């Protein structure tokens, strides 16, 4: 069996809170996770779920209260492992007195690239994230979206095998989001492992081989988006256009939403053919028929709701201090 790209075992993080810092708040609770090489893995959860905490633990920015993790078989405590990983923090902020080119040059130096190689890589990745024209502008003049692109460029500058992206789509306009999605897909195509956190479920559905759902510091489920989202169809959505002078059967128009002559109705799967027959006899123009499945969003909300019902307080009182 090959070594997993990421292996997390019982990773737990408690933070000391309160004036006397005697009370502990559990931010991550015994997380167990394995990500295979070459996977695009989505780490889902609402704000405060522990996604950023997990990424910061993996990057060695904070230290676990208990548990361990390995990236490509090497402990996260081993800094030399960082040669093989790339990381973009959430809402990245960089030295604003540097230009994008200077910043990438600064980071590239840590990997020991020669001057020529640095120059080549910087040009290549600035072009890749669409920042070539702003390469020599100081970062203090960059928009949030542009900083996000710099963040991605610095994370993949050294061709890492495992890339960690914390909320890579946040703050981006639709074009920027599509570009980031393309970059993730391209990295996946190259065989890289991409582990990214997000609370935007459509991104995860679109990009991920597997996703993990984290709520309140606890892992609630791992699986392919399709496994998590049941394939069970709970209805059909029909969009159609009514013809002037042809009245529609009241059965279909009850509860329908419409704009002008365009209607949207939801019918049980068993009744879809009879509904279509009735629409045909009313000379309505069918625009689309779509099966209605619970989305990842529905699943997510259900899990969050269940978690709240359990009312599991993540606070534990302890006299020990977190590292």
């Amino acid at each position, binding site marked *: 069996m090959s070594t997993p790209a990421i292996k997390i075992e019982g990773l737990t993080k408690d933070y000391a809170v309160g004036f006397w810092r005697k009370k502990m708040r559990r931010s991550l609770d015994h997380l167990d996770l394995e990500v295979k090489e070459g996977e695009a893995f989505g780490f889902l959860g609402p704000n405060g779920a522990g996604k950023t905490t997990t990424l910061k633990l993996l990057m060695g920015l904070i230290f676990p209260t208990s548990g361990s993790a390995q990236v490509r078989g090497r402990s996260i405590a081993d800094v030399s492992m960082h040669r093989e990983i790339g990381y973009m*923090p959430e809402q990245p902020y960089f030295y604003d*007195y540097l230009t994008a080119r200077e910043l990438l040059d600064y980071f590239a130096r840590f*990997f020991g690239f020669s001057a020529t190689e640095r120059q080549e890589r910087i040009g290549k990745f600035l072009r890749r994230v669409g920042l070539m024209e702003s390469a020599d502008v100081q970062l203090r003049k960059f928009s949030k979206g542009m900083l996000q692109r710099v963040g991605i460029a610095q994370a993949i500058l050294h061709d890492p095998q495992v890339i960690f992206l914390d909320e890579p789509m946040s703050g981006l306009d639709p074009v920027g989001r599509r570009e980031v999605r393309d970059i993730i897909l391209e990295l996946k195509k190259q065989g890289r492992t991409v582990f990214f956190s997000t609370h935007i479920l459509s991104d995860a559905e679109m990009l991920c081989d597997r996703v993990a759902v984290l709520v309140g510091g606890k892992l609630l489920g791992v699986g392919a988006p399709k496994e998590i989202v049941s394939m069970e169809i709970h209805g059909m959505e029909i969009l159609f256009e009514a013809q002037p002078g042809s009245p529609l059967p009241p059965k279909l128009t009850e509860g329908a939403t419409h704009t002008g002559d365009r209607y949207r109705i939801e019918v049980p799967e068993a009744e879809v053919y009879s509904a279509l027959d009735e629409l045909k006899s009313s000379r309505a123009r069918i625009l689309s028929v779509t099966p209605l499945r619970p989305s990842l969003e529905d699943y997510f909300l259900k899990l969050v709701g269940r978690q709240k019902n359990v009312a599991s307080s993540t606070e534990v009182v302890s006299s020990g201090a977190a590292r």
Partner: protein
Amino acid sequence: MNAIPGIVAVNTFREAVRDRVLYNLIFFALMMMAAAVLVGGVSIGIERDVIVNLGLTAISLFGIVMAIFIGVGLVYKEIEKRTLYSVLAKPIQRWQFLVGKFVGLLLTLAVNTVLMAIGLSAALFYVTRKFEPGDGTIVIAIYFILLELALVTALALFFSCFSSPILSTLYTLGIYVAGMFSPDIRDIGMVTSSPVVKAVAKVIYYVLPNFHNFNTIAAAAHSETIPLALIWQNTAYAGLYVVVILIAASAMFSGRDLK
């Protein structure tokens, strides 16, 4: 030197330059020009003393202010602005980052000090119209100021690892001022009859960095000979102290969670 701290050091220097830190040189230059013109007009026979005293005091003061005010933000600012996150995700140890920051600020202070020293030399030459062999003591005094700045920078960096800039400024300034009176603290221990005060004074005297020994401004102003032993003693003392403080800072910073 390890390449990684060097990369951080160069960037720290670049940050200081781009933040227009070296603009203080303009004030220094204006002050030295005004002093040279004024002293040349009113002093009789003590022009050299006044210029050297004023110049060296200003070099020391400007340097200390820079070391403290930039030093206390060296790490704190990186954590607050989260610029450190991307850096530490690269193959770099936290101690390497700290040493780089220290060297970078020291490099900035050294460039600043050398430029001010050139300004002082120009003012001195304008007033006395010659350089004397006794002026060598000015070079030694400037070297001691640099050692003093290295110590202050290390202290500010140490506090910057776990404390806010305001508190770090107070701690560093407090230790600097107390360290200037180091011999007086020792004397208190010698003259007191209380064994407790004696013991406390002794501990404070040995723990606090002795900044008094670095101050040879008066000796330089009066062209007094500075013993050779003092040069190596001060060098060894500052070097050892800086290493100890940097090790303590690294130990503290290496186990710290970055929130």
